[in-house]
């Protein structure tokens, strides 16, 4: 029953979910959901740039996502605009420029739907190798900078006062995020990457009592969502990327149930 392309998709998807889990926790804790979405939106521009320069699409995506993150940090520091306005401007400007750039290169045939929603069923062995190799690096760096990143998430000044280098940790986090977006684009597409970062993390919040546990649970939730989503997409013949996100969403809804049952009138979770 498991065709070869299907097991490749399964392995790639689970690998990606293991990476997005802990990273997504920081996106949620730092209230950077929209920030991640903005970086993801810039991925199409990155892909267009890569096509133009004839380089590997992933490097182009990583480059542009990093530039956008840098531009945001810079604009926030000098600008008079609130950061959610800046994010809105950059996200849609980057997406629009990407679409125009792709259209302006008639000599390359681009599967736009593939970029937007991904095509996890088309992953190759090389893709899997890239996902797992970069996954090891990403998770290793995350573990290495965990304490300073977590301290800076709680309070930047506290981290600085106690010598934990919050700025360095934040820059590293941006780079890791850009890397994950670059490798996730092919699998779930730029419009669904944010979902894979945020939904498993939000689901894990209900199930974990500490930050480390939440990161692990988020990875597991993401992996389960990939398995369920791909399975569903195979049986029901639905698009794979959206099916995975839907599975993650169903898991999230399920995670709300025990809470509602246990606490009755629990206060609404303020940490959107």
């Amino acid at each position, binding site marked *: 029953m498991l065709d070869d392309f299907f097991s490749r998709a399964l392995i790639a998807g689970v690998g990606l979910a293991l990476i997005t889990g802990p990273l997504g926790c920081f996106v*949620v*804790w730092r*209230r950077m959901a929209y920030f991640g979405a903005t970086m993801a939106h810039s991925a199409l521009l990155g892909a267009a740039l890569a096509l133009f320069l004839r380089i590997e699409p992933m490097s182009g995506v990583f480059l542009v996502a990093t530039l956008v993150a840098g531009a945001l940090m810079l604009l926030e520091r000098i600008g008079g605009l609130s950061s959610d306005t800046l994010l809105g401007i950059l996200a849609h400007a980057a997406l629009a420029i990407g679409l125009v750039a792709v259209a302006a290169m008639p000599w390359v045939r681009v599967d736009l739907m593939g970029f937007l929603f991904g095509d996890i069923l088309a992953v190759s062995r090389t893709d899997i190798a890239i996902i797992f190799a970069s996954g090891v690096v990403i998770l290793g760096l995350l573990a290495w900078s965990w*304490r300073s990143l*977590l*301290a800076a*998430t*709680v*309070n930047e*000044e*506290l*981290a*600085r*006062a*106690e010598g*934990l280098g919050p700025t360095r940790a934040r820059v590293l986090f941006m780079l890791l995020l850009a890397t994950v977006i670059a490798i996730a684009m092919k699998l779930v597409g730029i419009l669904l990457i944010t979902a894979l970062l945020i939904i498993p*993390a*939000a689901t894990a*919040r209900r199930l*974990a*009592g*500490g*930050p480390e*546990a*939440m990161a692990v649970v988020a990875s597991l939730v993401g992996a389960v969502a990939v398995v369920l989503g791909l399975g569903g997409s195979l049986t029901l013949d639905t698009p794979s990327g959206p099916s995975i996100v839907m599975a993650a969403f169903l898991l999230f809804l399920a995670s709300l149930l025990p809470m509602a049952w246990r606490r009755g009138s629990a206060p609404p*979770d*303020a*940490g959107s």
Partner: protein
Amino acid sequence: MLRTRSQSRSISTAGPATSLVEAHGLGVHRDGRWLVRDIDLTVNRGEIVTLIGPNGSGKSTTAKAIIGVIKPDVGSIRRASGLRIGYVPQALSIDRTLPLTVHRLLTLTARHDRTAVEGALEAVGVPHLRRVPVHDLSGGEFQRALLARALLRAPDLLVLDEPVQGVDFPGELALYGLIQDIRDRHGCGVLLISHDLHVVMAATDTVICLNGSVSCRGSPQAVVADPAYASLFGAAAAETLAVYRHRHGGGPAGHAHDHDHDHDHDHHRDP
């Protein structure tokens, strides 16, 4: 209990030799204006220095410059060599999406074993809260947990930015009593930020009134009597405070004010 390097040292030998931090002519310039300017400030071992002033008077800015979180644009800061700082930032709030027990909060920036964490919580009077999620704490309990976190560093200098925020009045008194108690036991210096002189009076050796620059300084009694204090907070506030002081016999915590330190020498009004 808590290991404190300063424990072995004498508390009462206040003077330039035991100053933990000394700032001279401190100024921080941001966005085309001076947030604070011409700040001279010294905290000695075993001394509690309170910065008071209205909102936007630069209290937090001064404290952050003192501990090195922000870089002053002018002036000099001399910190005692190997100075360890315990910091409780202002209005620290932890996002509800981040699950954190009190234990994990106390081990946020450095590894500590369970005994040390329990000792620190014991020292601030909340030993039973170690496994409780921080979001379930009351305002006073949370501030105590933050204080315990700062104490775990065995600090020479405690810097507390509005440590009673979100705490009810009896809780405020208890917290200031606790801060004084910590100072007495560990002999550390304390730099305290408050917008309200009423409740900190008893727990303070030196008060510095801030309004962009130092407008008056001295012992709490001297500052209350200072015209600069009245003009900064309004005559009504000064009078209320005077009345309050009479009623409560020198301060809410019932402590007398005659500490060993003699602050008269540095009681002056800056021009």
